[in-house]
Protein backbone atom coordinates (compact mmCIF):
# COMPACT_ATOMS: atom_id res chain seq x y z
CA UNK A 1 0.00 0.00 0.00
CA UNK A 2 1.32 3.40 -0.94
CA UNK A 3 -0.18 5.32 1.91
CA UNK A 4 2.46 4.66 4.51
CA UNK A 5 3.94 7.87 3.20
CA UNK A 6 2.39 10.56 1.09
CA UNK A 7 3.95 10.99 -2.29
CA UNK A 8 4.40 14.00 -4.46
CA UNK A 9 3.42 14.01 -8.11
CA UNK A 10 7.04 13.77 -9.25
CA UNK A 11 7.75 10.74 -7.02
CA UNK A 12 4.66 8.94 -8.27
CA UNK A 13 5.61 9.80 -11.83
CA UNK A 14 9.00 8.14 -11.28
CA UNK A 15 7.33 5.08 -9.81
CA UNK A 16 5.03 4.83 -12.81
CA UNK A 17 7.80 5.03 -15.39
CA UNK A 18 10.00 2.64 -13.39
CA UNK A 19 7.03 0.26 -13.29
CA UNK A 20 7.13 0.07 -9.49
CA UNK A 21 3.40 0.61 -9.60
CA UNK A 22 0.81 0.71 -12.36
CA UNK A 23 -1.58 3.61 -12.80
CA UNK A 24 -4.51 1.24 -12.30
CA UNK A 25 -3.07 -0.04 -9.03
CA UNK A 26 -2.38 3.53 -7.92
CA UNK A 27 -6.00 4.54 -8.57
CA UNK A 28 -7.26 1.37 -6.84
CA UNK A 29 -5.10 2.16 -3.81
CA UNK A 30 -6.65 5.60 -3.57
CA UNK A 31 -10.16 4.17 -3.85
CA UNK A 32 -9.29 1.75 -1.05
CA UNK A 33 -8.24 4.64 1.20
CA UNK A 34 -11.36 6.59 0.24
CA UNK A 35 -13.53 3.62 1.11
CA UNK A 36 -11.85 3.34 4.48
CA UNK A 37 -11.74 7.00 5.48
CA UNK A 38 -14.43 8.86 3.63
CA UNK A 39 -17.40 7.47 5.55
CA UNK A 40 -16.24 9.74 8.36
CA UNK A 41 -14.73 12.64 6.46
CA UNK A 42 -17.25 12.86 3.60
CA UNK A 43 -14.98 14.67 1.16
CA UNK A 44 -16.55 13.03 -1.89
CA UNK A 45 -20.08 13.37 -3.24
CA UNK A 46 -19.54 11.11 -6.24
CA UNK A 47 -16.81 8.60 -7.00
CA UNK A 48 -15.87 8.21 -10.66
CA UNK A 49 -14.28 4.79 -10.43
CA UNK A 50 -15.16 3.60 -13.90
CA UNK A 51 -13.76 6.76 -15.50
CA UNK A 52 -10.65 6.70 -13.28
CA UNK A 53 -9.76 3.10 -14.11
CA UNK A 54 -10.35 3.69 -17.80
CA UNK A 55 -8.05 6.75 -17.67
CA UNK A 56 -5.44 4.82 -15.67
CA UNK A 57 -5.54 1.87 -18.05
CA UNK A 58 -4.68 4.12 -20.98
CA UNK A 59 -1.62 5.35 -19.11
CA UNK A 60 -0.51 1.82 -18.31
CA UNK A 61 -0.89 0.83 -21.96
CA UNK A 62 1.29 3.76 -22.97
CA UNK A 63 3.96 2.77 -20.46
CA UNK A 64 3.78 -0.84 -21.66
CA UNK A 65 4.33 0.31 -25.24
CA UNK A 66 7.45 2.09 -24.07
CA UNK A 67 6.04 5.56 -24.75
CA UNK A 68 7.04 8.46 -22.56
CA UNK A 69 4.37 9.91 -20.28
CA UNK A 70 3.73 13.43 -19.02
CA UNK A 71 4.20 14.44 -15.40
CA UNK A 72 0.46 14.32 -14.57
CA UNK A 73 -0.33 11.11 -16.45
CA UNK A 74 -1.87 8.53 -14.18
CA UNK A 75 -1.81 10.83 -11.13
CA UNK A 76 -5.13 10.66 -9.24
CA UNK A 77 -6.92 13.85 -8.25
CA UNK A 78 -10.30 15.12 -7.10
CA UNK A 79 -12.57 17.69 -8.71
CA UNK A 80 -14.86 20.07 -6.85
CA UNK A 81 -18.45 19.28 -7.71
CA UNK A 82 -19.09 22.67 -9.31
CA UNK A 83 -16.74 21.86 -12.20
CA UNK A 84 -18.21 19.82 -15.06
CA UNK A 85 -16.92 16.43 -16.19
CA UNK A 86 -18.85 15.15 -19.18
CA UNK A 87 -21.41 12.44 -18.37
CA UNK A 88 -20.71 12.72 -14.62
CA UNK A 89 -23.22 14.15 -12.14
CA UNK A 90 -22.43 17.73 -11.07
CA UNK A 91 -24.56 18.98 -8.18
CA UNK A 92 -22.64 21.99 -6.85
CA UNK A 93 -23.97 20.48 -3.58
CA UNK A 94 -27.43 21.78 -4.41
CA UNK A 95 -30.70 19.84 -4.49
CA UNK A 96 -31.70 21.87 -7.52
CA UNK A 97 -28.94 20.11 -9.51
CA UNK A 98 -29.41 16.73 -7.85
CA UNK A 99 -30.13 15.03 -11.18
CA UNK A 100 -27.79 17.13 -13.34
CA UNK A 101 -25.47 15.10 -15.58
CA UNK A 102 -22.87 17.38 -17.16
CA UNK A 103 -23.28 17.36 -20.94
CA UNK A 104 -19.74 18.66 -21.59
CA UNK A 105 -16.28 19.00 -20.06
CA UNK A 106 -15.12 22.22 -18.42
CA UNK A 107 -12.04 23.57 -20.18
CA UNK A 108 -9.86 22.69 -17.17
CA UNK A 109 -11.20 19.13 -17.30
CA UNK A 110 -10.54 18.86 -21.01
CA UNK A 111 -6.99 20.04 -20.39
CA UNK A 112 -6.46 17.63 -17.51
CA UNK A 113 -7.83 14.77 -19.60
CA UNK A 114 -5.36 15.75 -22.32
CA UNK A 115 -2.53 15.64 -19.77
CA UNK A 116 -3.58 12.15 -18.72
CA UNK A 117 -4.60 12.93 -15.14
CA UNK A 118 -6.95 10.50 -13.38
CA UNK A 119 -10.18 11.70 -11.74
CA UNK A 120 -11.17 9.88 -8.55
CA UNK A 121 -14.38 11.75 -7.97
CA UNK A 122 -16.30 14.94 -7.28
CA UNK A 123 -15.87 16.68 -3.95
CA UNK A 124 -18.27 18.29 -1.52
CA UNK A 125 -18.68 22.06 -1.22
CA UNK A 126 -20.93 24.66 0.30
CA UNK A 127 -23.97 24.85 -1.98
CA UNK A 128 -22.94 26.70 -5.16
CA UNK A 129 -19.65 27.51 -3.38
CA UNK A 130 -21.41 29.85 -0.94
CA UNK A 131 -19.85 29.41 2.47
CA UNK A 132 -16.67 28.99 4.46
CA UNK A 133 -17.20 25.64 6.17
CA UNK A 134 -18.80 23.18 3.71
CA UNK A 135 -21.73 23.03 6.16
CA UNK A 136 -24.00 24.60 3.54
CA UNK A 137 -23.85 21.48 1.37
CA UNK A 138 -27.31 20.00 0.76
CA UNK A 139 -25.70 16.57 1.21
CA UNK A 140 -24.15 17.13 4.64
CA UNK A 141 -20.92 18.63 5.97
CA UNK A 142 -17.37 17.48 5.26
CA UNK A 143 -15.22 16.97 8.37
CA UNK A 144 -11.68 18.18 8.91
CA UNK A 145 -9.30 15.18 8.70
CA UNK A 146 -7.26 16.66 11.59
CA UNK A 147 -10.30 16.68 13.91
CA UNK A 148 -13.62 15.25 12.81
CA UNK A 149 -15.57 17.64 15.02
CA UNK A 150 -14.23 20.60 13.12
CA UNK A 151 -14.99 22.07 9.72
CA UNK A 152 -12.52 21.72 6.85
CA UNK A 153 -13.27 25.29 5.78
CA UNK A 154 -14.99 26.08 2.54
CA UNK A 155 -16.31 26.29 0.12
CA UNK A 156 -13.75 23.86 -1.40
CA UNK A 157 -13.78 21.88 1.86
CA UNK A 158 -14.19 18.52 0.15
CA UNK A 159 -11.19 19.12 -2.11
CA UNK A 160 -8.97 20.30 0.78
CA UNK A 161 -10.08 17.40 3.02
CA UNK A 162 -9.49 14.88 0.22
CA UNK A 163 -5.89 16.06 -0.19
CA UNK A 164 -5.25 16.44 3.55
CA UNK A 165 -6.78 13.00 4.21
CA UNK A 166 -4.55 11.30 1.57
CA UNK A 167 -7.64 10.57 -0.52
CA UNK A 168 -6.26 12.42 -3.58
CA UNK A 169 -2.82 13.62 -4.66
CA UNK A 170 -4.18 16.91 -5.95
CA UNK A 171 -7.57 18.56 -6.25
CA UNK A 172 -9.29 21.41 -8.04
CA UNK A 173 -11.24 24.01 -6.12
CA UNK A 174 -12.83 27.31 -6.99
CA UNK A 175 -12.21 30.57 -5.14
CA UNK A 176 -14.57 33.55 -5.17
CA UNK A 177 -13.66 35.10 -1.80
CA UNK A 178 -11.23 32.60 -0.28
CA UNK A 179 -12.82 29.25 -1.09
CA UNK A 180 -9.53 27.58 -2.06
CA UNK A 181 -7.15 29.29 0.38
CA UNK A 182 -9.23 29.20 3.57
CA UNK A 183 -9.95 25.43 3.46
CA UNK A 184 -6.33 24.78 2.41
CA UNK A 185 -5.19 26.68 5.52
CA UNK A 186 -7.63 24.92 7.84
CA UNK A 187 -6.68 21.50 6.46
CA UNK A 188 -2.92 22.14 6.40
CA UNK A 189 -2.38 21.97 2.63
CA UNK A 190 -1.42 24.36 -0.19
CA UNK A 191 -4.11 26.20 -2.13
CA UNK A 192 -3.67 28.64 -4.99
CA UNK A 193 -6.12 31.17 -6.36
CA UNK A 194 -4.54 32.22 -9.64
CA UNK A 195 -4.84 35.70 -11.14
CA UNK A 196 -8.35 36.43 -12.39
CA UNK A 197 -8.20 35.44 -16.06
CA UNK A 198 -5.30 32.98 -15.73
CA UNK A 199 -7.62 29.98 -16.05
CA UNK A 200 -10.75 29.53 -18.13
CA UNK A 201 -13.97 29.41 -16.10
CA UNK A 202 -15.87 27.62 -18.87
CA UNK A 203 -17.67 24.71 -17.28
CA UNK A 204 -17.29 25.96 -13.73
CA UNK A 205 -20.75 26.60 -12.28
CA UNK A 206 -20.84 30.38 -11.97
CA UNK A 207 -21.17 32.17 -8.64
CA UNK A 208 -19.62 35.65 -8.88
CA UNK A 209 -18.34 35.92 -12.42
CA UNK A 210 -15.97 38.84 -11.86
CA UNK A 211 -14.42 37.08 -8.84
CA UNK A 212 -14.47 33.30 -9.49
CA UNK A 213 -11.25 31.46 -10.33
CA UNK A 214 -10.46 27.76 -10.51
CA UNK A 215 -7.24 26.69 -8.81
CA UNK A 216 -5.25 23.74 -7.48
CA UNK A 217 -4.99 22.33 -3.96
CA UNK A 218 -2.11 19.93 -3.16
CA UNK A 219 0.41 19.04 -0.49
CA UNK A 220 3.42 20.75 -2.05
CA UNK A 221 4.08 23.91 -4.05
CA UNK A 222 5.56 21.89 -6.88
CA UNK A 223 2.37 19.84 -7.14
CA UNK A 224 0.31 23.04 -7.19
CA UNK A 225 2.58 24.40 -9.94
CA UNK A 226 2.29 21.22 -12.02
CA UNK A 227 -1.51 21.28 -11.92
CA UNK A 228 -1.54 25.02 -12.66
CA UNK A 229 0.65 24.47 -15.74
CA UNK A 230 -1.85 21.91 -16.99
CA UNK A 231 -4.97 24.05 -16.59
CA UNK A 232 -3.82 27.64 -17.30
CA UNK A 233 -4.30 29.51 -20.53
CA UNK A 234 -6.57 31.50 -22.77
CA UNK A 235 -9.79 29.88 -23.93
CA UNK A 236 -12.15 31.00 -26.64
CA UNK A 237 -15.04 29.75 -24.51
CA UNK A 238 -14.26 32.27 -21.74
CA UNK A 239 -13.81 35.84 -22.93
CA UNK A 240 -12.34 36.83 -19.56
CA UNK A 241 -9.49 34.34 -19.80
CA UNK A 242 -6.28 36.19 -20.56
CA UNK A 243 -3.79 35.65 -23.31
CA UNK A 244 -0.68 34.17 -21.77
CA UNK A 245 2.44 32.26 -22.67
CA UNK A 246 2.33 28.51 -22.20
CA UNK A 247 4.48 28.13 -19.09
CA UNK A 248 5.72 25.34 -16.89
CA UNK A 249 5.33 26.97 -13.51
CA UNK A 250 7.25 24.18 -11.82
CA UNK A 251 10.38 25.35 -13.64
CA UNK A 252 10.42 28.60 -11.66
CA UNK A 253 10.88 26.98 -8.25
CA UNK A 254 14.52 27.85 -7.67
CA UNK A 255 14.45 27.78 -3.88
CA UNK A 256 15.78 31.35 -3.89
CA UNK A 257 14.09 34.45 -2.52
CA UNK A 258 17.15 36.65 -2.09
CA UNK A 259 16.31 40.23 -3.00
CA UNK A 260 12.59 39.57 -3.23
CA UNK A 261 10.60 42.32 -1.51
CA UNK A 262 7.75 41.14 0.66
CA UNK A 263 5.25 43.63 2.07
CA UNK A 264 3.49 43.22 5.40
CA UNK A 265 0.50 45.24 6.58
CA UNK A 266 1.03 46.33 10.19
CA UNK A 267 -2.64 46.47 11.27
CA UNK A 268 -3.23 42.94 10.02
CA UNK A 269 -0.62 41.55 12.38
CA UNK A 270 -1.42 43.81 15.33
CA UNK A 271 -5.01 42.64 15.57
CA UNK A 272 -4.26 38.92 15.55
CA UNK A 273 -4.62 36.67 18.56
CA UNK A 274 -1.25 35.88 20.24
CA UNK A 275 -0.84 32.35 18.83
CA UNK A 276 -1.53 33.42 15.29
CA UNK A 277 0.67 36.47 15.68
CA UNK A 278 3.54 34.29 16.83
CA UNK A 279 3.14 32.06 13.78
CA UNK A 280 3.22 35.06 11.48
CA UNK A 281 6.33 36.42 13.17
CA UNK A 282 8.05 33.07 12.65
CA UNK A 283 7.13 33.15 8.96
CA UNK A 284 8.50 36.68 8.58
CA UNK A 285 11.74 35.70 10.37
CA UNK A 286 12.17 32.73 8.07
CA UNK A 287 11.80 34.88 4.97
CA UNK A 288 14.30 37.39 6.39
CA UNK A 289 16.78 34.60 7.02
CA UNK A 290 16.44 33.44 3.45
CA UNK A 291 17.39 36.90 2.26
CA UNK A 292 14.02 38.39 1.38
CA UNK A 293 13.47 42.02 2.24
CA UNK A 294 10.47 42.59 4.52
CA UNK A 295 8.81 45.97 4.12
CA UNK A 296 5.83 47.55 5.78
CA UNK A 297 3.15 48.50 3.28
CA UNK A 298 -0.21 50.21 3.49
CA UNK A 299 -3.43 49.16 1.81
CA UNK A 300 -5.73 51.85 3.19
CA UNK A 301 -8.83 50.72 1.29
CA UNK A 302 -8.34 46.98 1.75
CA UNK A 303 -10.48 47.04 4.91
CA UNK A 304 -13.46 47.81 2.69
CA UNK A 305 -12.90 44.66 0.62
CA UNK A 306 -15.22 42.48 2.66
CA UNK A 307 -18.24 44.83 2.70
CA UNK A 308 -17.68 45.62 -1.01
CA UNK A 309 -17.51 41.88 -1.66
CA UNK A 310 -20.78 41.30 0.17
CA UNK A 311 -22.46 43.65 -2.28
CA UNK A 312 -20.72 42.76 -5.54
CA UNK A 313 -20.79 38.98 -5.01
CA UNK A 314 -24.53 38.66 -4.13
CA UNK A 315 -25.43 40.95 -7.05
CA UNK A 316 -23.55 38.66 -9.43
CA UNK A 317 -25.14 35.63 -7.75
CA UNK A 318 -28.66 36.98 -8.10
CA UNK A 319 -28.08 37.27 -11.82
CA UNK A 320 -26.11 34.03 -12.30
CA UNK A 321 -28.53 31.86 -10.34
CA UNK A 322 -31.58 33.13 -12.20
CA UNK A 323 -30.96 30.22 -14.57
CA UNK A 324 -32.13 27.69 -11.96
CA UNK A 325 -35.81 28.11 -12.62
CA UNK A 326 -37.16 24.59 -13.04
CA UNK A 327 -37.61 25.12 -16.76
CA UNK A 328 -34.38 24.29 -18.60
CA UNK A 329 -32.72 21.67 -16.38
CA UNK A 330 -32.47 20.71 -12.77
CA UNK A 331 -35.23 20.18 -10.23
CA UNK A 332 -38.75 21.22 -11.18
CA UNK A 333 -41.45 21.45 -8.54
CA UNK A 334 -44.86 22.42 -9.78
CA UNK A 335 -47.45 21.33 -7.29
CA UNK A 336 -49.23 24.58 -8.21
CA UNK A 337 -50.33 25.24 -4.66
CA UNK A 338 -51.38 28.84 -4.41
CA UNK A 339 -48.74 31.04 -2.84
CA UNK A 340 -50.71 34.28 -3.08
CA UNK A 341 -47.76 35.80 -4.89
CA UNK A 342 -48.58 37.75 -8.02
CA UNK A 343 -46.18 39.09 -10.63
CA UNK A 344 -47.48 41.31 -13.39
CA UNK A 345 -47.60 39.70 -16.79
CA UNK A 346 -46.77 36.19 -15.60
CA UNK A 347 -49.38 33.46 -15.76
CA UNK A 348 -49.92 31.74 -12.44
CA UNK A 349 -48.75 28.27 -13.49
CA UNK A 350 -45.41 29.58 -14.72
CA UNK A 351 -44.86 31.80 -11.69
CA UNK A 352 -45.70 29.00 -9.26
CA UNK A 353 -43.19 26.72 -11.00
CA UNK A 354 -40.44 29.30 -10.57
CA UNK A 355 -41.33 29.99 -6.95
CA UNK A 356 -41.62 26.36 -5.91
CA UNK A 357 -38.61 25.03 -7.80
CA UNK A 358 -36.41 27.67 -6.18
CA UNK A 359 -38.08 27.38 -2.79
CA UNK A 360 -37.40 23.64 -2.50
CA UNK A 361 -34.32 23.41 -4.70
CA UNK A 362 -32.15 26.09 -3.10
CA UNK A 363 -30.72 26.16 0.43
CA UNK A 364 -31.00 29.01 2.91
CA UNK A 365 -27.57 30.62 2.34
CA UNK A 366 -28.15 30.60 -1.42
CA UNK A 367 -31.55 32.22 -0.95
CA UNK A 368 -30.07 34.79 1.42
CA UNK A 369 -27.46 35.85 -1.12
CA UNK A 370 -29.88 35.93 -4.06
CA UNK A 371 -32.19 38.09 -1.95
CA UNK A 372 -29.36 40.40 -0.91
CA UNK A 373 -28.21 40.82 -4.50
CA UNK A 374 -31.73 41.32 -5.81
CA UNK A 375 -32.28 44.01 -3.18
CA UNK A 376 -28.99 45.78 -3.92
CA UNK A 377 -29.71 45.80 -7.65
CA UNK A 378 -33.35 46.79 -7.33
CA UNK A 379 -34.60 50.14 -8.49
CA UNK A 380 -33.63 52.94 -6.12
CA UNK A 381 -30.79 51.03 -4.42
CA UNK A 382 -28.45 50.27 -7.30
CA UNK A 383 -26.36 53.43 -6.92
CA UNK A 384 -26.18 53.33 -3.14
CA UNK A 385 -24.98 49.73 -3.08
CA UNK A 386 -23.72 48.14 -6.29
CA UNK A 387 -22.28 51.21 -7.97
CA UNK A 388 -20.65 52.42 -4.75
CA UNK A 389 -19.12 48.98 -4.13
CA UNK A 390 -17.70 48.96 -7.65
CA UNK A 391 -16.12 52.35 -7.06
CA UNK A 392 -14.59 51.13 -3.81
CA UNK A 393 -13.28 48.20 -5.82
CA UNK A 394 -11.39 50.67 -8.03
CA UNK A 395 -9.78 52.23 -4.96
CA UNK A 396 -8.74 48.82 -3.63
CA UNK A 397 -7.23 47.93 -6.99
CA UNK A 398 -5.30 51.22 -6.93
CA UNK A 399 -3.95 50.34 -3.47
CA UNK A 400 -2.38 47.24 -4.99
CA UNK A 401 -1.08 49.06 -8.06
CA UNK A 402 0.70 51.48 -5.77
CA UNK A 403 2.15 48.86 -3.42
CA UNK A 404 3.37 46.74 -6.34
CA UNK A 405 4.70 49.67 -8.40
CA UNK A 406 8.39 48.97 -9.09
CA UNK A 407 9.21 52.60 -9.91
CA UNK A 408 7.86 53.67 -6.51
CA UNK A 409 10.03 51.16 -4.65
CA UNK A 410 7.10 48.72 -4.53
CA UNK A 411 7.15 45.17 -3.23
CA UNK A 412 6.91 41.89 -5.17
CA UNK A 413 4.61 40.10 -2.76
CA UNK A 414 2.33 40.81 0.19
CA UNK A 415 2.25 38.50 3.20
CA UNK A 416 -0.82 38.09 5.44
CA UNK A 417 -2.38 35.33 7.53
CA UNK A 418 -4.90 33.24 5.57
CA UNK A 419 -7.40 33.15 8.44
CA UNK A 420 -7.62 34.65 11.92
CA UNK A 421 -8.00 31.26 13.67
CA UNK A 422 -7.65 27.53 13.00
CA UNK A 423 -10.69 25.43 12.05
CA UNK A 424 -13.77 26.06 14.18
CA UNK A 425 -16.25 23.46 15.36
CA UNK A 426 -19.08 22.21 13.17
CA UNK A 427 -22.16 24.27 14.02
CA UNK A 428 -20.20 27.05 15.71
CA UNK A 429 -20.90 29.76 13.12
CA UNK A 430 -24.02 28.57 11.32
CA UNK A 431 -26.52 30.74 13.20
CA UNK A 432 -25.11 34.16 12.35
CA UNK A 433 -24.25 34.68 8.67
CA UNK A 434 -22.03 37.68 9.45
CA UNK A 435 -19.76 35.60 11.67
CA UNK A 436 -19.23 33.17 8.83
CA UNK A 437 -18.65 35.98 6.34
CA UNK A 438 -15.77 37.31 8.46
CA UNK A 439 -13.83 34.10 7.69
CA UNK A 440 -12.94 35.71 4.36
CA UNK A 441 -11.40 38.84 5.85
CA UNK A 442 -7.81 38.24 4.63
CA UNK A 443 -8.57 36.27 1.49
CA UNK A 444 -11.29 38.32 -0.19
CA UNK A 445 -9.02 41.25 -1.11
CA UNK A 446 -7.26 39.10 -3.72
CA UNK A 447 -10.59 38.39 -5.44
CA UNK A 448 -11.68 42.02 -5.33
CA UNK A 449 -8.35 43.12 -6.82
CA UNK A 450 -7.87 40.04 -9.01
CA UNK A 451 -4.29 39.31 -7.88
CA UNK A 452 -3.01 35.73 -7.44
CA UNK A 453 -2.71 34.41 -3.88
CA UNK A 454 -1.59 31.19 -2.24
CA UNK A 455 -2.11 29.76 1.24
CA UNK A 456 0.88 27.92 2.69
CA UNK A 457 0.80 25.83 5.89
CA UNK A 458 2.86 27.31 8.75
CA UNK A 459 2.46 24.93 11.65
CA UNK A 460 -0.26 24.08 14.11
CA UNK A 461 -2.06 25.79 16.95
CA UNK A 462 -3.54 23.98 19.92
CA UNK A 463 -7.29 24.44 20.28
CA UNK A 464 -9.08 22.49 22.99
CA UNK A 465 -7.51 19.06 22.65
CA UNK A 466 -6.53 19.27 19.01
CA UNK A 467 -3.48 20.51 17.18
CA UNK A 468 -4.97 22.31 14.19
CA UNK A 469 -3.08 23.57 11.15
CA UNK A 470 -2.96 27.23 10.16
CA UNK A 471 -1.63 28.95 7.07
CA UNK A 472 -0.30 32.21 5.80
CA UNK A 473 -1.07 33.88 2.51
CA UNK A 474 1.16 35.42 -0.13
CA UNK A 475 -0.40 37.70 -2.72
CA UNK A 476 1.48 38.49 -5.91
CA UNK A 477 1.31 40.90 -8.81
CA UNK A 478 -1.26 40.29 -11.53
CA UNK A 479 -0.13 37.35 -13.70
CA UNK A 480 3.04 36.86 -11.67
CA UNK A 481 2.35 33.35 -10.38
CA UNK A 482 6.06 32.62 -10.96
CA UNK A 483 7.34 34.78 -8.09
CA UNK A 484 4.41 33.80 -5.89
CA UNK A 485 5.13 30.09 -6.28
CA UNK A 486 8.89 30.62 -6.08
CA UNK A 487 8.59 32.31 -2.67
CA UNK A 488 6.08 29.73 -1.41
CA UNK A 489 8.36 26.91 -2.49
CA UNK A 490 11.47 28.47 -0.91
CA UNK A 491 9.59 28.76 2.38
CA UNK A 492 8.35 25.18 2.12
CA UNK A 493 11.76 23.59 1.59
CA UNK A 494 13.67 25.69 4.12
Amino acid at each position, binding site marked *: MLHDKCFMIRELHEKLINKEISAVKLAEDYFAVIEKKDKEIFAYLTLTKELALEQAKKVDEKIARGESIGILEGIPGAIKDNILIKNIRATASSKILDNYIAP*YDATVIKKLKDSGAVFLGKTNLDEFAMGSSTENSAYGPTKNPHDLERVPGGSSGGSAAAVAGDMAVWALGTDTGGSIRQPAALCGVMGLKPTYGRISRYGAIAMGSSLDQIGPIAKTVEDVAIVLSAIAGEDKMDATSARSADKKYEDYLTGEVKGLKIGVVKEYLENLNPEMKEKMEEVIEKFKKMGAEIKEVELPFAKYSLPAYYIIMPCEISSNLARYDGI*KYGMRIDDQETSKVKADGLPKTL*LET*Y*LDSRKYGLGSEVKRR*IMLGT*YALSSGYYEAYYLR*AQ*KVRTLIKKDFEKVFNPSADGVDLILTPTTTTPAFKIGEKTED*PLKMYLEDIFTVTANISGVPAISIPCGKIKVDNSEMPVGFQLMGKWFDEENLLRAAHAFEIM
Partner: protein
Amino acid sequence: MINKSEVQHIATLARIGLDEKEIDKLSKDLSGILNWVEKLKEVNVDGVEPTAHITGVNNISREDRVGDFENKEGIKKLFPEEKDGFDKVKSVL
Protein backbone atom coordinates in the same frame (compact mmCIF):
# COMPACT_ATOMS: atom_id res chain seq x y z
CA MET B 1 -34.23 47.70 8.35
CA ILE B 2 -35.85 45.45 5.76
CA ASN B 3 -39.40 44.70 6.86
CA LYS B 4 -41.38 41.60 6.02
CA SER B 5 -43.30 43.12 3.15
CA GLU B 6 -40.05 44.28 1.57
CA VAL B 7 -38.66 40.76 1.93
CA GLN B 8 -41.76 39.42 0.19
CA HIS B 9 -41.37 42.01 -2.57
CA ILE B 10 -37.71 41.08 -3.17
CA ALA B 11 -38.58 37.37 -3.07
CA THR B 12 -41.13 37.94 -5.81
CA LEU B 13 -38.57 39.81 -7.90
CA ALA B 14 -36.11 36.95 -7.31
CA ARG B 15 -38.84 34.31 -7.96
CA ILE B 16 -38.21 32.53 -4.68
CA GLY B 17 -41.09 31.08 -2.71
CA LEU B 18 -40.64 31.65 1.03
CA ASP B 19 -42.55 30.51 4.08
CA GLU B 20 -43.32 32.75 7.06
CA LYS B 21 -40.35 31.50 9.08
CA GLU B 22 -37.95 32.20 6.24
CA ILE B 23 -39.40 35.67 5.77
CA ASP B 24 -38.81 36.46 9.45
CA LYS B 25 -35.26 35.19 9.40
CA LEU B 26 -34.40 36.97 6.14
CA SER B 27 -35.81 40.23 7.42
CA LYS B 28 -33.40 40.00 10.35
CA ASP B 29 -30.41 38.67 8.38
CA LEU B 30 -30.66 41.09 5.48
CA SER B 31 -31.02 44.03 7.84
CA GLY B 32 -27.91 42.92 9.73
CA ILE B 33 -25.83 42.48 6.57
CA LEU B 34 -26.98 45.75 5.02
CA ASN B 35 -26.23 47.53 8.25
CA TRP B 36 -22.72 46.14 8.19
CA VAL B 37 -22.03 47.10 4.55
CA GLU B 38 -23.01 50.67 5.45
CA LYS B 39 -19.30 50.96 6.21
CA LEU B 40 -18.81 51.61 2.50
CA LYS B 41 -20.45 55.01 3.00
CA GLU B 42 -17.32 56.17 4.87
CA VAL B 43 -15.40 56.07 1.60
CA ASN B 44 -15.27 59.17 -0.55
CA VAL B 45 -15.96 57.89 -4.04
CA ASP B 46 -16.43 61.25 -5.77
CA GLY B 47 -15.00 61.11 -9.26
CA VAL B 48 -13.98 57.44 -8.93
CA GLU B 49 -14.75 55.22 -11.91
CA PRO B 50 -16.49 51.93 -11.05
CA THR B 51 -14.69 48.64 -11.72
CA ALA B 52 -16.92 45.88 -13.03
CA HIS B 53 -14.10 43.71 -14.15
CA ILE B 54 -10.54 43.67 -12.91
CA THR B 55 -8.41 42.92 -15.97
CA GLY B 56 -9.97 45.71 -17.99
CA VAL B 57 -10.62 43.58 -21.08
CA ASN B 58 -13.70 44.50 -23.02
CA ASN B 59 -15.42 43.51 -26.23
CA ILE B 60 -13.58 40.33 -27.09
CA SER B 61 -14.93 39.65 -30.56
CA ARG B 62 -14.88 36.62 -32.76
CA GLU B 63 -16.34 35.57 -36.04
CA ASP B 64 -20.09 35.00 -35.79
CA ARG B 65 -20.22 31.40 -36.87
CA VAL B 66 -22.55 28.57 -35.92
CA GLY B 67 -20.80 25.62 -34.30
CA ASP B 68 -22.16 22.18 -33.67
CA PHE B 69 -22.56 20.92 -30.11
CA GLU B 70 -21.71 17.23 -30.16
CA ASN B 71 -23.83 16.12 -27.23
CA LYS B 72 -27.36 17.33 -27.97
CA GLU B 73 -28.83 14.16 -26.47
CA GLY B 74 -27.06 14.93 -23.19
CA ILE B 75 -28.79 18.30 -23.06
CA LYS B 76 -32.20 16.94 -24.00
CA LYS B 77 -31.99 14.41 -21.20
CA LEU B 78 -31.76 17.29 -18.74
CA PHE B 79 -35.08 18.84 -19.79
CA PRO B 80 -37.57 18.58 -16.92
CA GLU B 81 -40.23 17.82 -19.53
CA GLU B 82 -39.55 16.94 -23.16
CA LYS B 83 -41.87 16.90 -26.13
CA ASP B 84 -40.79 15.99 -29.67
CA GLY B 85 -37.19 16.82 -28.87
CA PHE B 86 -38.06 20.20 -27.38
CA ASP B 87 -38.01 21.46 -23.81
CA LYS B 88 -41.64 21.84 -22.83
CA VAL B 89 -42.28 25.04 -20.92
CA LYS B 90 -45.32 26.30 -19.10
CA SER B 91 -47.73 28.53 -20.91
CA VAL B 92 -46.26 32.02 -21.00
CA LEU B 93 -49.43 33.83 -22.02
